């Protein structure tokens, strides 16, 4: 995919941060010090070893290759950068991402892409529970499976899953679109299967292309979304409260 090839091309010029030698704070401060037009466009992070908050709050269009597995909140609030984690990610990867992209080569733990506003999160392995919870415009593409309660209260954006989804998919969903190629454990409240119209096939093809996924057809997916029955208070449900 474009992000990886650019990082590889810039390898010889990449600014390398070894977290065995330097502190996480130094790394994040250096990334936050970047100004528009900086020629330090390629970064490499070594020995992340499950550290929290690697490359959070980056707001310049640089590429960051993280060589190893990260802990909580990697790439949180990302705005415009392309972060590739050559390992797995802990909870909350890409939380509240605004734009740019994050690629996880391994698995992601719970609430990947939570509350994300924009950009693209690609998880090449499996994602855990609550993937895309309360997503607000982010696009998430998962090659493997996702866990239970994914896309809970998802508001907008697209969640694409090439494998299976766990229980209670899309519970209390608003207007996000969910595309699942495999089985769905169960649908959450107010989430229903919907027809795949030409505009959805086109949208899905675009998402697969952006995620660098080939050999998979949009017609292999089912679409799920909101039945919109929870949007207004229904007096018949008054006894439930």
């Amino acid at each position, binding site marked *: 995919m474009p992000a990886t090839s650019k990082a590889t091309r810039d390898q010889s010029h990449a600014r390398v941060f070894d977290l065995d030698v330097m502190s996480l704070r130094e790394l994040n401060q250096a990334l936050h010090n970047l100004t528009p037009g900086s020629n330090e466009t390629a970064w490499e992070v070594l020995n992340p*070893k*499950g550290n929290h908050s690697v490359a959070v709050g980056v707001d310049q269009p640089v590429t960051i290759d993280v060589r190893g*597995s990260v802990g909580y909140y990697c790439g949180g609030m990302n705005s415009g950068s392309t972060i590739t984690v050559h390992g*797995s990610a802990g909870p909350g990867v890409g939380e509240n991402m605004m734009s740019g992209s994050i690629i996880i080569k391994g698995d992601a*733990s719970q609430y990947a892409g939570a509350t994300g506003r924009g950009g693209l999160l690609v998880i090449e392995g499996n994602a*855990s529970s609550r993937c895309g919870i309360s997503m607000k415009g982010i696009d998430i593409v998962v090659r493997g499976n996702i866990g*239970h309660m994914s896309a809970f209260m998802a508001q907008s954006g697209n969640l694409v899953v090439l494998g299976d989804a766990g229980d209670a998919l899309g519970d209390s969903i608003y207007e996000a679109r969910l595309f699942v190629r495999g089985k769905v454990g169960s649908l959450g409240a107010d989430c229903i299967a919907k027809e795949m119209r030409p505009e959805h096939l086109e949208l899905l093809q675009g998402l697969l292309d952006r995620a660098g996924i080939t050999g998979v057809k949009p017609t292999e997916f089912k679409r799920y979304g909101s039945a919109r029955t929870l949007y207004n208070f229904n007096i018949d449900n008054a006894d439930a409260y």
Partner: protein
Amino acid sequence: MCGIVGLFLKDKSLEPQLGSMLSEMLISLSDRGPDSAGIAIYGAPSKNEAKITIQSARPERDFRGLDTELAKAIGTPVSIVVKSTHAVVRTTPAKIDEAREAIQALRPDIRVMGAGDVVEIYKEVGMPEAVVNRFDVRSMTGTHGIGHTRMATESAVTTMGAHPFSTGADQCLVHNGSLSNHNNVRRELVREGMKFETENDTEVAAAYLSSQMAHGKNLGEALKGTLSDLDGFFTFVVGTKNGFGVVRDPIACKPAVMAETDQYVAFGSEYRALTKLPGIDNARVWEPEPATVYFWEH
């Protein structure tokens, strides 16, 4: 929050390093819970002796002369090794229950941390590194062990409120989370005859498992029972004489990562805890599924 770790060795050549491996795992999670920390180590079994780990807030007063007095009280030789506020009492397996009662009669202020053929339990208020250093955990050898660093949420920050909790011979449990029906379950277990030392929710989970196993269930079956009988948030890591188990509640919001190689099975609240283990880069690393029991036995 809280941080929990567990390590079950398959490769005997690693046994001399169990204490140091488990110590490093626990220290790496220090910022998940600075209140208190504890560790349980399962050592080599011996036909001729069983162990009781005891604790006192005034070790100089309570441990002095205890070996002689205890040996006289139960009519059998006793050895005691003191480590800071804790001490390990060894005597013949047949006399272990009698020794436990005699200790309480001779020294009413002493608390029993745990007892069994192989387990030793050390826990105190303080950061993991301080606790590990105080009890020289790094030098300990063994087959498996579990550890906990606590951020207290529902009961006092005391030695007795620290994990692991042990409520049966060679059984102990560490917990990340909080239970909501522990008072009810405690009342039921008290009716069965179980005794409790604290108001802590985790002690109830430990006693629940001890009760289930006393009724003939194996570790896996007992762990499965927690899914229907305990309400609340939990990731449990449990040790028995020859076993090691993990279970998470169906919501599974408390983090958990596991790793397995030919040499070991390891558990950590976070991947950070596993990064120093040998061969971790080639280990199978996964997140345990919600409402799914995992257990291994030697």
